[in-house]
């Protein structure tokens, strides 16, 4: 579904992505793990059109169409069904919870369908229905994460980019979020997940890629990487 080839991205003078290549297959849950500054978020920002690569390509195939993400505007990328739920949630603090969810559906024209999705989101996160008219900035961190994910779902993603959904959240909330991620996968949404909690990510991932210094250094299934010595030492905190 997604084919990333030899992506080189600079931020200012810094060469952040150095020839990144990987694939995500239709319906797969792929995890991208690596240390801070390895280039994970930069990869996602490039895929959603907010950063432009110096060279390389990123091709999204959906419904028989083939789109070069490195040339499309972020608006067209959203319309194509590639939805990015960014690091740090980035919800609209001054807008109400309901307005935040409506912003997620910004590109959706079918009001009836939006209402249906809204109900699904409210079933997944009942608290969002209760707090519909509250300013989103006044919610707790976990609730704000639910707004961010709910907002992404209202965009009807074919492929979802999730950047650190568990960062700074209480373990119980993290479990809820991971449940939702797995439920999404079961409905056929392709997911690319960045996670600092590598153990949890590898447990649910079909495929995983390890990123170091702007390159993919290791790829495999979640299980393979979870049993790989190097990964165990560096990312899972297991002594050799």
């Amino acid at each position: 579904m997604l084919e990333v080839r030899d992506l080189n991205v600079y931020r200012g003078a810094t060469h952040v992505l150095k020839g990144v290549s990987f694939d995500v297959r239709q319906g797969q849950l792929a995890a991208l793990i690596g240390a801070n500054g390895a280039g994970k978020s930069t990869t996602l920002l490039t895929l959603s059109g907010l950063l432009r690569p110096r060279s390389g390509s990123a091709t999204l195939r959906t419904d028989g169409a083939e789109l070069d993400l490195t040339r499309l505007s972020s608006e067209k990328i959203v319309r194509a069904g590639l939805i990015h739920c960014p690091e740090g949630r980035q919800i609209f603090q001054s807008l109400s919870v309901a307005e935040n969810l409506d912003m997620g559906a910004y590109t959706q024209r079918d009001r009836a369908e939006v209402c249906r999705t809204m109900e699904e989101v409210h079933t997944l996160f009942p608290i969002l229905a209760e707090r519909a008219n509250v300013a989103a900035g006044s919610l707790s961190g976990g609730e704000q994460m639910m707004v961010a994910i709910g907002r992404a779902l209202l965009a009807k993603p074919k492929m979802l980019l999730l950047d650190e959904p568990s960062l700074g959240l209480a373990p119980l909330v993290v479990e809820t979020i991971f449940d939702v991620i797995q439920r999404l996968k079961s409905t056929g949404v392709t997911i690319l997940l960045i996670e600092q909690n590598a153990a949890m990510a590898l447990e649910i991932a079909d495929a995983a890629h390890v990123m170091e210094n702007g390159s993919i250094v290791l790829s495999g299934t979640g299980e393979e990487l979870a049993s790989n010595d190097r990964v165990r030492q560096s990312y899972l905190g297991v002594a050799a």
Partner: protein
Amino acid sequence: MSQYLFQQIINGLALGSLYALVAIGFSMIYGIVRLINFAHGDLVMIGAFSTLALVTAGVPWPLILVFVLAIGAIAGMTIETIVFRPIRGASQVTGFIATLAVSIAIQNSALMILSGQPRNFLFPAFMRQRVGFGGVNASLTDIAIIVLTLLLIGGLFLVVYRTRLGRAMRATAENLTAARLMGVAVNRTILAAFAIGSALAAVSGLFWGGKFGQIDPLLGFVPGLKAFVACVIGGVGSIGGAMLGGYILGLSEVLFVGLLPQEFSGYRDTFVFLLLIVILLIRPSGLFVRHTEERA
């Protein structure tokens, strides 16, 4: 209430309406692109002279109002497209200097085309009438300004708080990157903010001419500056704050002159900018803004 005090209050509300209309656009533009737009006041001048041209051409007044709104919107969108959009990524200082450049360019082009000679604003004679209610009376012009301004602001609030475009504008103002991730075409949303803000400034030019009777190519400077003060009073970036700031400024300016002895009236603008300094000292984020977050 005495006729004198009533007259002062109506006068202050009318002046406040003019400031509020300019300040709202100023605030919307700052809110969405973090640009202190010193060319914004010149839209007032453009609105005033467009009105004069349309009156001279014999266009009926209700249509003039619509045309002036449209001319303001087009002028604002043009400035945004050819000057501000290309320098979007640049530092705030660069943007600020660019707005000064645009202001000087507009003022001097107007001086070249129109000459610096003040013109009499052609306003229908019946608007000069006074209407009375219960022992007090006020000028019809002032009342028309106050009522039309409230209608325009009401319309603006409907757009900003009840429509998809308004929601996108508020979202973009708060977090431009996140708005892009929602699929908002942010350049179009920014253009809409410029169009709406500039239309309101232009229509305040029409009111300005009606209230003061004379217009000249440099008339935009003062409302631009006062709008800035009104925004600081209310909290830059907030539409409601800018509106209230405009009314507070207009009222206090008029009451300052009206209620203090004659010899102070020359210090009117001194008072306004003293107010600015005091507010910056005690409530730098504005009187009506509860929380502020600075975006780099």
